[in-house]
């Protein structure tokens, strides 16, 4: 029995590991169970059976389930998945396990743009433009990082150092803008900076979905190149990888994923860092294996965090970001501890 299945096609070339497939087969039911749990939990607990019934035939809970809970859960999952894959790509690109969109300044750039929007434009423009501002902020920051890191090519170390520097700068700008902003907006800005999927409707979902539909398959198509890049620049070039072109592509797909996710849910942190690490504990270190597993884990993490946020302090509705950090921080420390051993 072969250990790998190799897929080769004009645009797609990757190897699937049998173990990965079995992990995925186990993970999927777990994810669905979590989603079902999230659908059941809320101000009123509905049994999973009722939920399934309601989803098939509209009953008296249809509004709560289909208009209030489901879009929120779908959004949380997409945001988590996008951030997880974005983090995974950055970690492979920079060859550093601590890389993630929030550490190299992409989330920071989106935050600065979002807070700028909330502070100075929210009165004249509808809040529906907020995601656009955040995505522009993320892309601009990525361009600046890339431009500054360029020195006849981009080396991962330069990229990460400049990224961290820019992240600090962006945080400073965000803080400055909160101080300068009218009082009414600081509260909204703080909620945004924590990350929340509160009040998501289907329209929001349909606006984030295209980003994922384009960028996730595109990321998968680069799987071979990403694995080769992990071996070091010299080896990657020897293997026939167009290193600089692919590095740029990887960076921008990762920025697109993180920027879009953050645009709709705010600066959710830790998911991009942690989900790939959990995935590494489960499957082999091939990008084609890690990406889907990271996406599922990242998505589930945010769904669970938001479920906690919605239910733990009833009737208060807390931002999901609070709980992502609560689950994320201990795990992060555990990870550092293990590396030390």
């Amino acid at each position, binding site marked *: 029995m072969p250990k790998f299945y190799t897929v080769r096609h004009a645009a797609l070339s990757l190897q699937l590991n049998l173990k990965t497939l079995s992990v995925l087969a186990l993970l999927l039911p777990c994810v669905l169970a979590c989603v079902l749990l999230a659908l059941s939990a809320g101000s009123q607990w509905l049994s999973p059976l009722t939920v399934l019934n309601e989803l098939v035939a509209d009953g008296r809970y249809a509004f709560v389930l289909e208009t209030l809970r489901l879009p929120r859960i779908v959004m949380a999952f997409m945001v988590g998945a996008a951030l997880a894959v974005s983090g995974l790509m950055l970690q492979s690109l920079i060859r550093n396990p601590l890389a993630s969109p929030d550490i190299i300044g992409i989330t920071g750039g989106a935050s600065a743009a979002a807070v700028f929007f909330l502070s100075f434009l929210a009165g004249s423009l*509808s809040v529906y433009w907020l995601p656009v501002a955040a995505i522009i902020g993320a892309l601009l920051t990525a361009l600046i990082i890339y431009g500054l890191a360029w020195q006849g090519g981009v080396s991962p170390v330069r990229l990460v150092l400049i990224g961290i520097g820019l992240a600090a700068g962006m945080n400073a700008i965000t803080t400055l803008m909160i101080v300068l902003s*009218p*009082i009414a907006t600081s*509260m909204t800005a703080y909620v945004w900076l924590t990350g929340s999927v509160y009040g998501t*409707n289907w329209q929001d979902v349909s606006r984030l979905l295209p980003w994922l539909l384009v960028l996730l398959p595109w990321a998968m198509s680069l799987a071979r190149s990403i694995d080769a890049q992990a071996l070091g620049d010299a080896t990657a070039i020897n293997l026939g990888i167009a290193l600089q072109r692919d590095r740029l592509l990887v960076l921008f797909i990762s920025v697109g994923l993180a920027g879009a996710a953050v645009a709709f849910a705010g600066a959710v942190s830790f998911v991009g860092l942690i989900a790939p690490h959990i995935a590494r504990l489960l499957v082999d270190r091939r990008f084609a294996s890690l990406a889907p597993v990271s996406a599922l884990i990242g998505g589930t993490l945010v769904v669970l965090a938001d479920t906690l946020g919605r239910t733990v302090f009833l009737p*208060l*509705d*807390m*931002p999901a970001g609070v709980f992502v950090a609560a689950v994320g921080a201990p795990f992060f420390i555990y990870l550092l501890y293990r590396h030390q051993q």
Partner: protein
Amino acid sequence: MTLHTHWLTRLTLTCLCSLITCTVLASDHTRTLTHALGNTSITGTPTRIVTLYQGATDTAVALGITPVGVVDSWLEQPTYQFLREQLANVTHVGLETQPNLELIASLQPDLIIAAKMRHEKIYPQLSQIAPTISIDYVFQFKDTVQQMGTALNRQTQADELLNHWTQRVADFQQQLKTTQRNTPNTVSLLDFRPDHVRLYLQDSFAGSILTELGFTVARNQGSHNQWALKLTSRESMPSLNADVFFIFKLTDDPVTQRVYQQWTQHPLWQTLTAVQQQQVFFVDEVAWSASGGVLGANKMLDQVYQHFGLTP
């Protein structure tokens, strides 16, 4: 003569008829309200209302209505003392900034009162739960009264509340003019917070009321939706200058108390007119700011009367 009587009868009948139609219309007709977030049609007299900001809760009570759902108050949580009696058994749906949509839906309201400043993002969901009306800013207490009066078919009560307010303002001005020799001109409203000091401007709740009473309150410096200034540096102290300072009573928070100590012991503090004239007074933040409704406004006015030794 007969013809004449006949004509009179007909006229009376017509009048009666139209009167009846009018009453029926008033209680059951559909009216469209244009508000900060769009147009909303309301039929009949809503009875199950959910109020999503403090001023709306206050105004509902003022109009003699007990909402089925309210948001937590900012101070004296979960409900301001002066509203506790009327709102004893009302469901709370979370915070003004992030109310729990599921809970709101489970109350099956027939009208939701929101504010664009807080609820613009969730307006689509709110409108799916029940007809939702919205004002721009939470502290526009007169707009709240007017809008809720129309929406709740309590136009008369709403007009009464506003007329009563206008009369009280006129009475206060009259009394002040006849009893006080030199009334203060400029007033500053200060709020000490852990990380900054707030100077409330003309467009804020208390600022607009003091302006209406005839005092001069610091004005908005251009940028829109600016109802207070955040002062983070003690060097900006001269910009507070006024004949009288009204300061919101300090909370027990030690950090806030330290900020207060630092500001008031600063040499610049002694240069301010109100400090030199010993015209620094503490006021009740619930009435002066957090309540945000017409009842709160009247409570604040009572306290202003008291401050000048006048009888409301």
